[in-house]
């Protein structure tokens, strides 16, 4: 396991040094800064607009970071031939693959934490709320981190068999589909005009595609006051669901990477 952690730590260092990631992060942070000025869009619901938009910016930025960070990870190692020096040591391919992924997840944790802190500071300055409100808002970025870890698993899995450019579109597409899965499924399932076969197909898709919408739990944070039962259980189950999907994707990725010519 030591090899895995060493690779992960190196990956974090590389991620911090990558300018493209820093630029994306900076744009996200800048957007978070100007969001409180958008509260004028709603006279009484200014808090809803501010929080909702801040979370949307954070989610979008995190998704972009997750994709850009992971799609180049393994192809770059192969292209620069640095992979040979690693694999020539007593390091298994699956260890290298897992280490790279864990490095990406830790980098995402770092970046999301940075954005969260910045968001909470900006929110505290402009909206002037109690600490308890700030703490409750911090729940959502945790879910985003799990969501982005899942997205990173999708991207790194796909990166074992396609080029980075195609991977960007594929990963983004999977995330987009996974993001609209819940409302899409509800629209089809609750529409009396939907034919039964369509309902079955949509159910199958919801079951077989990683569902990113489950991690979007900001609605009660935007509109506080709605009692939610077993919130902890929901968080635990969705995190477990994410871990299951990540494990599945990493197994698939490791199996493909194991057979790949490098």
């Amino acid at each position, binding site marked *: 396991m030591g090899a895995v952690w060493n690779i992960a730590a190196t990956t974090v260092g590389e991620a911090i040094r990558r300018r493209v990631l820093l630029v994306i992060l900076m744009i996200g942070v800048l957007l978070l800064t100007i969001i409180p000025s958008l509260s004028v869009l709603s006279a009484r619901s200014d808090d809803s607009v501010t929080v909702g*938009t801040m979370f949307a910016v954070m989610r*979008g930025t995190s998704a972009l970071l997750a994709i850009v960070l992971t799609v180049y990870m393994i192809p770059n190692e192969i292209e620069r031939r640095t992979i040979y020096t690693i694999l020539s040591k007593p390091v298994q391919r699956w260890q290298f693959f897992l280490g790279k992924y864990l490095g990406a997840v830790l980098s995402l944790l770092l970046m999301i934490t940075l954005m969260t802190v910045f968001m909470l500071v900006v929110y505290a300055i402009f909206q002037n709320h109690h600490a308890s409100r700030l703490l409750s808002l911090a729940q959502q970025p945790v879910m985003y981190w799990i969501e982005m870890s899942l997205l990173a698993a999708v991207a790194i899995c796909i990166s074992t068999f396609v080029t980075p450019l195609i991977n960007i579109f594929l990963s983004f597409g999977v995330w987009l589909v996974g993001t609209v899965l819940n409302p899409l499924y509800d629209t089809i399932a*609750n529409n009396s005009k939907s034919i039964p076969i369509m309902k079955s197909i949509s159910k199958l898709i919801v079951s077989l595609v990683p569902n990113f919408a489950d991690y979007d739990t900001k609605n009660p944070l935007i509109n506080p006051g709605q009692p939610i039962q077993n919130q902890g259980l929901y968080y635990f189950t969705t995190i477990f669901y994410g871990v299951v999907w990540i494990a599945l994707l990493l197994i698939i990725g490791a199996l493909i990477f194991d057979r790949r010519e490098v």
Partner: protein
Amino acid sequence: MWKIRKKLYGVGAVLLIVAATLQMTYIHPKWRKDYSPEAGGLVASQLSPEQILLQLFGFREFLAGILWVRADGFFDAGNYDAILPIIRVCTILDPHNIDIYATGMWHIAYNFTDQEQRSNRRYIPIALALAKDGIKNNPNTYELYFETGWLWYQKIDDNPSEAVKYFQEMVKKKDVLPAREDLLANAYFRDQKIMTGLNWYFHLYKEAIARAKKDTFYANSQIRDTLESNIDNTIIRMIQRGYLAQKRNDGSYEKGDYDTKPPFNVGFSAKVTVVRPRVLRVTGTWNVLPVGCRIRFIVRDLHYPNALPAELDWNKNDNFNFNLPTNLTYMQDQLFCKDQRFDRVENMSKDPTMYPFDSNHYLLEFFYDPAFGAPHIQDKFGWNGVGMTDPNFLNTQIRKGVRVIYATLELSKDQILMRGQWQNRHATVETSNFKESSPTESMTNIVKVPSLRGN
């Protein structure tokens, strides 16, 4: 090696089954219940592609805010029709924005008027459907219960039990403003639940005293004093209007001298003349001398779907849509009575889309309900019209527990549009008792409105 791979395939399959089971049995239903923005679904219609993208990426509230600002621009420009779809899209994007629902309801119910400033009441079921949607998405705040109750109480001005229903829900909410709570008592009075209304006043008064003691803020003592005055007035009215005597049911009302006795003959009669195509002159008699009476006048298709006497079934829409019955005509106005008569010209010629006159026959309805009358008129007529009568048009059937005045006349499409055999003729229809009158006629049958001071 192959064995390990085979095992991993098996593990992968198990993981997929576990994930799918979790998703369908617990996570999705729970997300739908607690974390979905309620209205759910994909809002594709009415949005441009970039707006759909914004929505998909979670900028729902932001997008709703932008659209709402845009709607404000349309409102300022008087382009009211353009606002309707925006209201709907905004409520789907941000179903917890109370302002959009409240303003949207008000806009739909009140602001679509004809050139004579008469509301297009065909929109009221749409406004109510929006209200129901708002309440479904925001059940924990008083505001939309208040707005909906107020729509029934003030705009629809009929079916008081509906206003009572919404105000009852309103007062259960923790965030209700104390100054709004007494509306429930007024709604009870209209619904003929006089004693319940008085008891509600007492309940509020008790709370107001406690609040004023706890906090000497001026508004608190003002609410307490207002309630005290309302209670005094109500008790005096209950006595003077003979309400308590009637309730005793021991013959004391029949024997006693109450303001509502003897019942006053309002002497209603009416005549309607088509003066120009789509323009009606409505004249008639109403013996009540003091100003304050307004008679509801309706022109509608004879076979208007869901029509009830002097109103429509406003509650028929449960799902919000913009399917306005554009082929149907429904015009409602108030006839202001002065000098014991009314005389008004109803011009429907400037708004052919609002009054299409597609059908062949039209019903003209006249309606007066004392339960909705001004307090000084109610002092004579009572809450339920016990102090009012009419030899020809008194009706005790169409509104439960209330004596109302109700009369109907009919006109044909050709008569209203002055075509066919009516091309150069002015059709006139009148009640059988109609007698021409003028403001200068004698005022022998004057209703004496009692004063609360007793002189």
